[in-house]
């Protein structure tokens, strides 16, 4: 049963990934991408990585995609379509993709994967204590670094948003 679910999800992901890069309408590409991301979340659910799956849904599907849609909404008119690339570029891209796919497939098939019986699901409490642990295998440093990075991004965003107003004081015309 799980095999069937896995293959159907995988098929959905592959189909929509191809659709996403070939669609000429930008918002449609985004929606296809959303399906791919949801498929990834589905696979996480399948292997009982519930937390990661929920994070995948919240951050990628709910956050990033909404932001992309939002920016598309702001700049994109409904009748606009992306141009078709030149034939030479198309061929170049296809070759590059094929090479990438080849490398991935050879790596995957040359490696021996062992099937591990998943005995217990990771709970949020485990992940939380791992994130805050400073012992071996703890993630306190990357966790804190990322929070500093996010803070910096936030301050930057505020400054960009406020920028017009700050200069507006000197410039009467605004």
């Amino acid at each position, binding site marked *: 049963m799980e095999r069937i679910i896995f293959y159907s999800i995988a098929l959905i992901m592959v189909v929509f990934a191809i659709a996403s890069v070939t669609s000429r309408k930008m918002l449609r590409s985004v929606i296809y991408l959303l399906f791919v991301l949801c498929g990834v979340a589905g696979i996480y659910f399948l292997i009982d990585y519930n937390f990661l799956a929920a994070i995948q849904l919240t951050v990628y599907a*709910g956050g990033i995609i909404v932001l992309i849609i939002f920016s598309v*909404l702001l700049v994109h008119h*409904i009748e606009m379509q992306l141009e078709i690339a030149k034939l030479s570029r198309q061929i170049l891209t296809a070759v590059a993709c094929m090479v990438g796919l080849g490398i991935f497939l050879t790596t995957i098939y040359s490696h021996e994967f062992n099937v591990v019986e998943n005995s217990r699901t990771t709970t949020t409490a485990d992940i939380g204590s791992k994130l805050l642990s400073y012992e071996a295998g703890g993630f306190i440093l990357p966790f804190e670094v990322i929070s500093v990075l996010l803070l910096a991004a936030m301050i930057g965003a505020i400054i960009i948003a406020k920028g017009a107003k700050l200069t507006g004081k000197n410039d009467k015309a605004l």
Partner: protein
Amino acid sequence: MIRALSITRSIHDWLYSSMSENMAYFIEMVLIAIVYLAIFAVAGLFLVLIERRVAAWFQLRIGPNRVGFQGLLQTMADALKLLSKELTGTEKADKFLYNLAPYFVIITALMALAVIPFTQDFQAFDINIGILFLIAISSIGVIGILLGGWSSNNKFALIGAMRSGVQTISYELSIGLSLLTMILITGSLQLSEIVEVQKSGWLIVQGHIPAIIAFMIYMIAGTAETNRAPFDMAEAESELGAGFHTEYSGMKFAYFFLAEFINMFIIAAIATTVFFGAWLSPFGITESIPILGVFWFLAKAMVLVFLMMWFRWTFPRLRVDQLLTLEWKYLLPLNLMNIVIMALIVWLNLTIQF
């Protein structure tokens, strides 16, 4: 899956004994999906009727009372009418996304329904990150509204979609943080465990003052999340006509409409689970009859739904910038403060336990 109710147990056994495991598994999934679809449809239609009657009573009217006894079949008739209506659309609309949008809204509502503990063991998907799952699902629902607004090729719809996007992204924070406040007491994201913790007192009692503040914030943010008045910026019929679903008709409109009501029920159900002890009876008066849990759960949820209806039929609508002011200047700081207070209370063991 549904376990404790004995009838489901016997169906389960029969299915596994009579056919191959995969087949039984598949059939079981389909059965559960059908059960939840039925719950969805019935609850949606029932809530629409309730809303119309309640609105009528607030407004000194009588409300629908013609179709069936006391108008009970009114929404059924309306649904039939909507089914038979022509599906119109605008020229140059992005037909694919235009048709897709209602399903986004309705499927996310349906998925959220799956984790709600109606009573002991009456829960399709008791995932160990239940609350997080609900938040994640609800963040996807907005995509349907954004798509619907954009792809109808209508400026009013586009403005509605934009407003809705801004609003939902902002208020998700408050919902998450106010639920997080309560998670501090329970120490678990799993909905069944959250209910278990409340056997020694509902969380709104256990957490007293910060819990009440969290509940108020949750209700405000929840009302905003479902795009209902006074936060119905996305529809705002006096400003935008009908907002994001201006160009929808027939059943596609009905999907948006039903999803709004189901979302309202979900918000109330989460509040019931997290603040009011889900299916636990007050003071344990019906502890011995587990099936009454459904009754208690629905009763509590209905009270909260009624509260949201009361909001809707009393308050004027906020303006879009005031909406954001409310979230970022009032709810969010209060919420963060509230989390700290709650952490202190849990740390100092000041929670009230029976």
